């Protein structure tokens, strides 16, 4: 899993780390039970404050994405969100709303938007399969 930050995005740095870990988990670049980089090396590599990485990991733990094993580090958890299903759906709906607003401003039509969603889902599926195949090869 490689994290890349962009200070020009205007998005809080710790949230960039949170979102990229989640994206890595969704695409299979990071698998259940795999360790996340430890805080200090990651902070040094990204040239950010240690507190920022710690804050991102705390947020990920709060969201149930990772778990901390004392003395061993942080690991990706089985995908069991601590939130109730209706709340999870609502959280996703908010993200979709933001994408819809963006699509409207960029004059992307509804049909194209839906096609794009499907295409992106398939793209994630494909990388996921590729990662799985690679994992099997290694075994």
């Amino acid at each position, binding site marked *: 899993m490689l994290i890349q930050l962009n200070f020009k995005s*205007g998005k809080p740095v710790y949230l960039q780390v949170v979102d990229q870990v989640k994206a890595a988990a969704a695409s299979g670049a990071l698998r259940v039970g795999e360790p996340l980089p430890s805080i200090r090396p990651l902070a040094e590599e990204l*040239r950010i404050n240690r507190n920022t990485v710690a804050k991102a990991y705390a947020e990920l733990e709060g969201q149930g994405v990772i778990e901390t094993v004392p003395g061993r580090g942080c690991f990706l958890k089985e995908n069991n969100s601590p939130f109730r299903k209706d709340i999870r759906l609502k959280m996703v709906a908010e993200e979709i709303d933001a994408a819809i607003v963006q699509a409207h*401003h960029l004059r992307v039509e509804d049909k194209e938007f839906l096609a794009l969603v499907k295409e992106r889902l398939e793209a994630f599926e494909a990388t996921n399969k590729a990662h799985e195949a690679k994992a099997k090869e290694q075994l």
Partner: protein
Amino acid sequence: MNQDQSVIEVTHMVHKYGRTEAVNDLSLRVGRGKCYGFFGRNGAGKTTTIKCLLNLLRPAAGSVRVFGLDPARDEVGVKSRLAYVPDYVAFYPWMTVRNVLDYLASFRPRWNRRTESELLGQFRLDPTQKARALSRGQKTQLALTAAICAEPELLVLDEPTSGLDPIVRREFIQTVIGAYQEADPGNRTVFVSTHLISEFEGLIDEFTIIEGGRAALTLGADEARARYKRIRARFASEAPAVDFPQAKQVRREGRELELTVNGHSEEILERLRALAPEELTTEALTLEEIFVAALK
């Protein structure tokens, strides 16, 4: 700990050299465990402020508290818990690197030998070398190593990278602050003054820009990047001559329009979209660009 979580608290501080006011009604607060940037041009009052924190200078008015203590009344209480690296460091020239470290360690209740050897190795400092033979950059590296080995609760750095070449600079500050925060990060506070801001981009949690001895801007780094933005719009024909009173700066060049904004970006974007641009992009300013924009 009184003053709850503040490590440094400066209120309405004034310091004058003769009739010249170097620091004029400055207030700032540094929370425990934060990496705090103190940005300003040369002569803005950065070093004077730092010297007031260390009781090397006495403020003419206002108050200074470090760990909730007054550095003028409780000098040892304050200094034993912090380490200070000035912009220009000097050692006894006849001492070797080893001697310098042992000498400095003798004043400290704690000294982390592991950190010491780790940093000496990373900076490739030879313990048998005489201080007089060290370059300016090596002296800074030695001073920072010594500051961190003492494991102070507060690290005060005055222009720590100014004597270093640009390649060494970024790597180096990262190493130093990483090593410092390694143990007990909640109790490791950094107060760093600099005008070379880009090296500290990702490290700074919060900052104050000082100008003419006053705080021109105090903000969290993420908050600052969310507020200060550059918006670019390109139109099919000549950029419309519309006024944007909320923008800090507007540049018009043929079909292109570039706005620097501090807040209000949603309203400005809304107005731009109504003008149907071919392309519309937004990016956050870097802390260095924010520094420049704030002082304009």
